[in-house]
C-alpha cells in the first residue's frame, strides 16, 4: 500500500520517463516518428504476400461490418501483438539498461517498466489511429467502439507490463532471460491466430481431437486478438467468455508482476 502511494506521488517522474522514451527513440533519425509506422506497414505487406497470396489464408468476412480484406484483418490482430512484444522485450530489459540510473538515485523502480508500457502505448495509439482510418475508408465502423477499444488497450497494457515486470527481475539474475524470451515470443506468435484465422485450427481439431482447440485457447493472446478483431474488424461486442478471460489474465498477471517486482526491487541496485 505504501508503495502504491509512493508510485502515485511520483507520477510526474513516470510522465517524464515516458517522454524520454518517446522523444529519445527516434533522436537523430531523418524520418523520426514515421519509423514507428513504417515497421508495421512493411510487416503487413510481407505477411499479406506470403499468407494471403501464397498460402491463401481466407479469414471469415467481418460480421456485421462486411469487411473482407486480408491486410486489414491482419493488422487488427498484428498491432496488439506488436504492442505486446515491444512491451515485454522493452520492459524486461528496462532495469538492466538503466543500471546507471538505478545505482545512482532512488526512485520507485517500477516506473521504468511502466514507462515502457506507456511510451509504447503512444506509438500503438498512432498506429491504431491510422488503422481505424483505413477501416473506415473501406466501409467499417470502428468509431462507436472507441471506449471499448481504449478499455482493451488498458487491459493488454496491464497484461504485458505484468509479464514484463516479472521477467525484468528474472533478467537481473540471469541475463539469458532476454534472449530466451525473444525466442519464445517468436514461437508464441505462430501459436496465436494473427496471420492465419482460428478456423484453420478448428478444422485440424475436428480431425485430430477437440482437445487441441481447448489447449490452443488457453493462450491469453488468443483471447486478446479475438476481442481486438471483434471490436475493430467485425464492429461488434466481444463474446462474454473472451472478455472475462482477458480481464482475468490482465488482473492476475499484473497483480503477480506487481508483487514480485515490489518484493525484489530493494535489492536491484546491488545485483546490477
Amino acid at each position: 500500500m505504501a508503495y502504491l502511494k509512493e508510485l502515485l506521488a511520483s507520477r510526474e517522474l513516470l510522465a517524464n520517463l515516458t517522454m524520454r522514451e518517446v522523444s529519445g527513440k527516434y533522436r537523430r533519425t531523418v524520418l523520426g516518428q514515421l519509423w514507428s509506422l513504417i515497421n508495421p506497414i512493411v510487416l503487413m505487406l510481407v505477411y499479406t504476400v506470403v499468407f494471403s497470396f501464397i498460402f491463401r489464408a481466407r479469414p471469415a468476412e467481418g460480421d456485421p461490418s462486411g469487411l473482407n480484406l486480408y491486410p486489414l484483418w491482419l493488422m487488427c490482430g498484428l498491432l496488439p501483438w506488436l504492442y505486446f512484444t515491444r512491451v515485454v522485450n522493452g520492459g524486461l530489459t528496462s532495469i538492466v539498461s538503466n543500471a546507471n540510473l538505478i545505482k545512482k538515485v532512488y526512485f520507485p523502480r517500477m516506473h521504468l517498466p511502466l514507462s515502457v508500457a506507456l511510451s509504447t502505448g503512444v506509438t500503438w495509439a498512432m498506429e491504431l489511429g491510422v488503422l481505424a482510418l483505413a477501416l473506415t475508408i473501406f466501409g467499417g465502423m470502428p468509431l462507436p467502439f472507441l471506449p471499448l477499444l481504449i478499455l482493451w488497450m488498458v487491459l493488454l497494457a496491464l497484461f504485458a507490463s505484468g509479464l514484463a515486470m516479472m521477467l525484468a527481475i528474472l533478467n537481473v539474475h540471469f541475463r539469458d532471460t532476454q534472449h530466451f524470451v525473444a525466442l519464445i515470443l517468436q514461437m508464441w506468435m505462430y501459436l496465436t491466430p494473427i496471420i492465419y484465422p482460428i478456423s484453420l485450427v478448428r478444422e485440424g481439431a475436428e480431425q485430430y481431437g477437440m482437445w487441441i482447440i481447448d489447449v490452443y485457447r488457453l493462450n491469453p493472446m488468443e483471447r486478446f486478438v479475438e476481442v481486438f478483431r471483434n471490436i475493430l474488424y467485425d464492429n461488434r461486442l466481444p463474446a462474454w467468455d473472451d472478455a472475462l478471460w482477458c480481464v482475468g489474465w490482465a488482473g492476475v498477471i499484473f497483480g503477480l508482476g506487481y508483487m514480485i517486482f515490489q518484493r525484489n526491487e530493494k535489492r536491484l541496485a546491488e545485483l546490477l
Partner: protein
Amino acid sequence: MSDSAVIVDRVSKKFRMYKERNQSLKAAIMRGKKSIAEDFWAVQDVSFEVPRGATFGLIGRNGSGKSTLLKCLARILHPDRGSITMNGKAASLLEVGSGFHPELSGRENVFLNGSILGLSKKEVASRFDEIVEFSGVGKFIDQPVKNYSSGMYVRLGFSVAIHVQPDILVVDEVLAVGDGAFKKKSQNKFVEFTKSGRTVILVTHSLAQVREMCNQVAWLDQGRLAAVGDADEVTQKYQAHLDAAGS
C-alpha cells in the same frame, strides 16, 4: 520530536561475494542449488545521529564502507540489519554524474533529474535559470551531457541537487572533481544551506575540507565505526592512523 535530522541505528550491510559471478542460467545450474558465495560485511553495526542543521563528515580509508553507508542513506541500498530514520526530504549526489542520461541534453537532464528528486515540472522551470547559472555550464546546457567534461557533469548534478532544496543532502566525494572556484562557491552554498536548518552529510578524503566545513565527523574503519564526534578530535585521530599506516 527529536532534533536529529538522521538517525542511523545499528546499521549493517552485507554483499554476497561470488567466486565466479556468471549471470547465466548455465552457470547457475552447474553450481547446483548452493551457489558459491561468501558474505562480506561492508558496513557493520554503525550507529550515529546527525543533528538538524549540521554538516556531517564521513571519513575513512578506501573500501571502508563510506559510499555503501551513503547509498543506504540515499535508499539505493537497503541495510540488512538496523534502521535509518530520515526526518525530512532527502536528495543525494553519489559520485560523478548522478543519474544523467548521456544522450539527452543538459536541459532535458535537469528536468529528468529534478523529477527524480521529487520536483514538479513547474518547480524545476522556476529554478532553471538559477540552476544553470550556479553550475556555470552556460551555453553547453543544450548539448548532450556525454560531451561534458567530468567537472561540468558534477557541477550540473550538484547544482540540481542543491536547488531541489532537500532537508537532507547526501554527497559523495563530488567536490573533488570541481575546480577551486567551484569548490569555494559550493562551500558557500553549503553554509547558506545549513543556516536555513538543512543538513548535509558528505564523504571526502580532504581532511582540510572536513576541518573547515564539518561540525561532526564519523570515521569508518573496515566497515566499523572507529570514532564519531567533534571534527577536530576525530580527524586528528584519523590522521595519526593514516601516518602510522603510510610509513
